[in-house]
């Protein structure tokens, strides 16, 4: 990435912002300096120990994204059969692939869960031929906060600084 530090800072800050919020507050966080000003919002959803955070600009509907996260999580659930955070952390690449089927280059590509799963399955078929990564139960555990920042802001043009919001889910 253009700036590793900025990226880490964004993730850190977002994590702090989001994790501090109570249950009974709204799921939107408005523009901060780091994510590029008033046009951008953080929209998050909280599932047990996981936070899914999307950063979107004003061209997206807030509630729409909220439900998109729901679709994403449901899809993950189907793909991993009862998803848990360990799945996400050990299969970063798969998570990314699923996400790439939904959001491409910052644009919502597909919101139809069956369609997404179909695509992912098609790709997985190839994988089947290989030895799965599955193995004995691991004692390793970790508390994971999954931070997704996939909605790449469109047309960022804030002076000369064009902050690139990382287009990846990251774990802390």
């Amino acid at each position, binding site marked *: 990435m253009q700036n590793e530090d900025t990226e880490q800072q964004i993730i850190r800050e977002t994590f702090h912002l989001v994790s501090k*919020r109570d249950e009974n507050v709204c799921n939107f966080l408005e523009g901060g300096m780091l994510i590029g000003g008033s046009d951008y919002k953080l929209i998050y959803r909280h599932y047990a120990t996981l936070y899914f955070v999307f950063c979107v600009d004003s061209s997206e509907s807030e509630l729409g994204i909220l439900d998109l996260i729901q679709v994403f999580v449901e899809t993950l659930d189907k793909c991993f059969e009862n998803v848990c955070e360990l799945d996400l952390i050990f299969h970063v690449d798969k998570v990314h692939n699923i996400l790439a089927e939904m959001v491409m280059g910052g*644009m919502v590509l597909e*919101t139809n869960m069956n369609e997404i799963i179909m695509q992912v399955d098609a790709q997985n078929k190839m994988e089947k031929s290989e030895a799965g990564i599955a193995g004995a139960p691991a004692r390793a555990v970790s508390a994971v906060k999954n931070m997704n920042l996939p909605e790449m802001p469109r047309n960022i043009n804030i002076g000369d600084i064009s902050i690139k919001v990382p287009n990846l889910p990251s774990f802390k």
Partner: protein
Amino acid sequence: MSDVVEKTLTALPGLLSLDSQPGSNKLSSSSKLGNLIRGITELTSKHEEEKLIQRELTSIKEQVSSPNTSMRQMKELMVRAIYCEMLGYEASFSYIHAIKLAQQGTALEKRVGYLAVSLFLNESHELLLLLVNTVLKDLQSTNLIEVCMALTVVGQMFPKDMIPAILPLVEEKLNHPKEIIRRKAVLALYKFYLIAPNQVQHIHNKFRKALCDKDPGVMTASLHIYLQLIEENPEGYKDLTTSFVTILKQVVGGKLPMDFNYHSVPAPWLQIQLLRILCLLGKNDQSTSEIMYEVLDESLRRAEINHNITYAILFECVKCIYTIHPKSELLEKAAKCIGNFVLSSKINLKYLGLKALTYVVQQDPKLALQHQMTIIECLDHPDLIIKRETLELLFRITNAQNVTVIVDKMLEFLRINKDDYTTIDLVGKVAELAEKYAPDNEWFIETMSTVFSVGGDTMQPDIPNSFLKLLSEGFDSVEEDRKLRLFAVDSYVSLLQGEPGKLPQRFLQVISWVLGEYSCLRADLEVDTVLRLLAKLLDMKTTSSETKSWVLMAMTKLCEGGAGVSVARGVYETYSSSLDTVLRQRAQELQHLSQDPELRARVLPRHTGLEPLEVDSSLSFLDGFVSEALAAGAAPYKPPHQRQEELAQAKALSLEPYGLSLPLSMSSCSITDRQSPTLLSISSGLSGNSNDLSHKGGLRLDGVKRVWGREGYLAQREPAEESAHVEVPSTLRSPSQQGVADGSHSQTPTHTPTPEPELEKQQLASSLFVGLGSHSSVCLMGKSEPTPQRFRRKARSPASSSGASENVSHSLVSPPITVDTLMCNNLLDSHITSEPDVSPLEQTPPLSLGLAAANGSCDEELPDSDVKGSSPSLIGDDALVAADPAPHEEPPKDLLLSSYLPAELSGLSHSEITPLSSDQSLDLSACHVHKEGDLVLVVFIYNSSDSDIQQILLELDSEELEVSCECDGAVGGARGHSVAVCQYSLSVKRPSVHVELVGTVSYQFPVGTPQSGQFSYKLPLSSFIRPLTLSTEEYGTMWLDFSHDTKQNLTLISDDPEPLAASLSVLKKKLQLHVVEIIGMEGIVACRLLQDQPCLMHCRLHAGTLAVWLRSPVPDLPDCLMYFCQRALQEH
């Protein structure tokens, strides 16, 4: 990171139980990634983690560069590298290997390769070029999945310059039989459009094809493109409105396959997208809007299921309905929807409801009124985001009457807010409101002090700048200025006596400037004290060197006499050896000026007050020096823009130099001077009566937030008199009477007493929403209407003498309002509680209880009473203004006279025919006719008597104009009841906003004594402006030649998608300017003043305003033209 690790550890026990869960079965303990992750979770410190990752990275590095590593191992390594990067450790060595993996791997490995590339690299990374070939190959692959992967990575990141290489292939994919490929290709093209719009211009018709694709998914993807295109140019796609409407109709009607349903809502995201597009298309366009009414109604109706996603659709519907050309039925429904949002118990919906309210409040302030109680609740909501959204809403409805309450709320929020971004934003808003609507000096200074201390050093620099400018320029009344400054001095001195260490640097700078400038106003304040306070600032460790130089400047202004010298010496000793050259310079100045009173008096004349400094802007006193230097062989000076011009001559038109216009705000350095440079432009106009808009004073107040300077303080002269009237009824009436008066206004007088907290809210509500809806939406939108400011009258009442007894009706109607306002002062505004006339109310709590209840319920009614309250005074104002222009003659006469216009002029546009003078026998009227190269004044002389007049003599004279007679002399006769016409050609000698002609008419009847009369005729300079047609090159050369210029930021016509073009076309239309060229964000415009005096204008979009720079060889012309431009844009 370490805190995350800590959290991990605390969470460990709970998570260990996860082991038995199915998810963990799939994990491999033997996998290296597994080992790595396990290793990390077992660590206890950040340091250990670093060590572990470094070890890991070294091992990865070794393996990736080993030739024996298989692609499959490589894939595994890449995942580990991704993990390390994600934790914030650099693994740049692996980038190239990721690209290699994408290139050489089989499908699956390729996928990881592409993924790693898209995670590691950014769009401008040079390694990305190496990927182009791979992408090219994969796009041509027969394997669908490979094509998909390639398109995905193209959509995520692709070097801009290489687009042409793959563009044909991507285009081809638009016809691919597989819909997923088509869809991805559309999005990839969209991406291209975003990063390089020019390169995909030729395929716009292919986008249309995608829109009509038989697969809804492809069509959905194409909507992304259209949303973008339409946002940029709504006019170009109006023809598609029907298509979009049809699509939406089908979607809403459930014509799509069930697959697309989400929680039994058909394709909600598609609906949202379509609604957004319609919203853009229907804006300001009635006929287009009409096409969509039906489907909007349908959407509203269908979206009934109680689910998040239907609310998302509803929200878009509402927004759309309020944006497009209004239809009352729909508006009603939309308003109801907003109500549901706001009242919802779901916090997310509440948030959206507030957003919607903020959006519509300018069109429909009543809606906010309806939901006031909810808004009040939201103000106390524990969620800061909701709170902030509410404040945003309140900001939009602020007026002179509720400003104190709203600003109070904002400041309250600012004190608890931690987010920098919000602080900056909100501080700016508070400052704006304070300047616009400040009810009195104390409040203003106090509010600004809070703004400075809360805003700290993060706030926009123009806030302190414009504050100081306001202080230094003052307003209409010298006395008011003095009071304001005195108060500022007082409060700052006490602040410094407190704990100045806690104040932010910016605030300290403001304080030291004010003290340096105005502490002399306070006679009983010893210079010594101030100097010591300032010196204390210098000694503080936290003070930055910039602040120190402000402080030193202030001390320089102050120190005179014995004590000053000693302080100065002390300071000098400390700072004369400072490493900071600026500080050293300031210390030297201080030292010298304090020792030489005479020099000091010359350099820093005291009590200059408002008189502007005469500054020789041409620096002629340097002429001798310059000529010497030139003689000695120095290069002649070229202004910066000329230098740049020369550098950039290769380009056909380089507007860069103009773009470098200096900021209007004062630089920190200049403000330390005794008079700010911007003050120079404030000429004598300031002292004039700025009541008259056409007066010069209006022109020169550039940059100042006008409202305070004009309406704000303007109203102040009257309040002194008026306050007496407002005051009398409210104090003389017994409280019970007031209660009755107020109660009689309530719609539901039977309102039962409400519990205490509820009551407070209602009071808050009544104070917040006071005045809202009263002056119709115009007032809210414009925010500039000089509303009668009751707060001010209250606050100032003690000083007021019982003035003249004008406007009796006012006092009769206003009591309810007064009570109302008092109530809120009483309970909410601590600043004003000290007022004597409030106390009676305070002492009668039971009554105020009842009162407030009535208050709360009578809010619906409030607007009406408010209108009544204010209308008399408005009428009064009108009368004042109306007296200004000459009384209007009966209109038929105008028509009649225009028929006397000479034939050669009759086809041209002319001004209204205004009467000049009349006596028993002669009526004089005149108008001016715009000819292309000339301005002709036509005087009509109507002989209303029965007898003929032989000889009429007209003499015209003007300071600003050259008058030459065109007709056969002003001399002629007029028969009884007939009209004689004279023509004069006018040209401008000296530009001025308004030019005036004075004339005398003398005549004699055959029998009788000679008669004469005087008249005057005023016309705006804009009548003399004609377009000047020239080419961009000519413009460029002329620009450099002209010496007189002026710069100002004007308001932009912001409701247009292309604000620059719209603003320029307004100027073109109203002022007859010639738009030479518009290039991107800049435009150049030319005009001439009759006859042939050019004036050039350069406009640039800058931070939401139109930065205008005018240049002309004629002095004063740019200033005058700027005035007209400002007027034209404001009136629009």
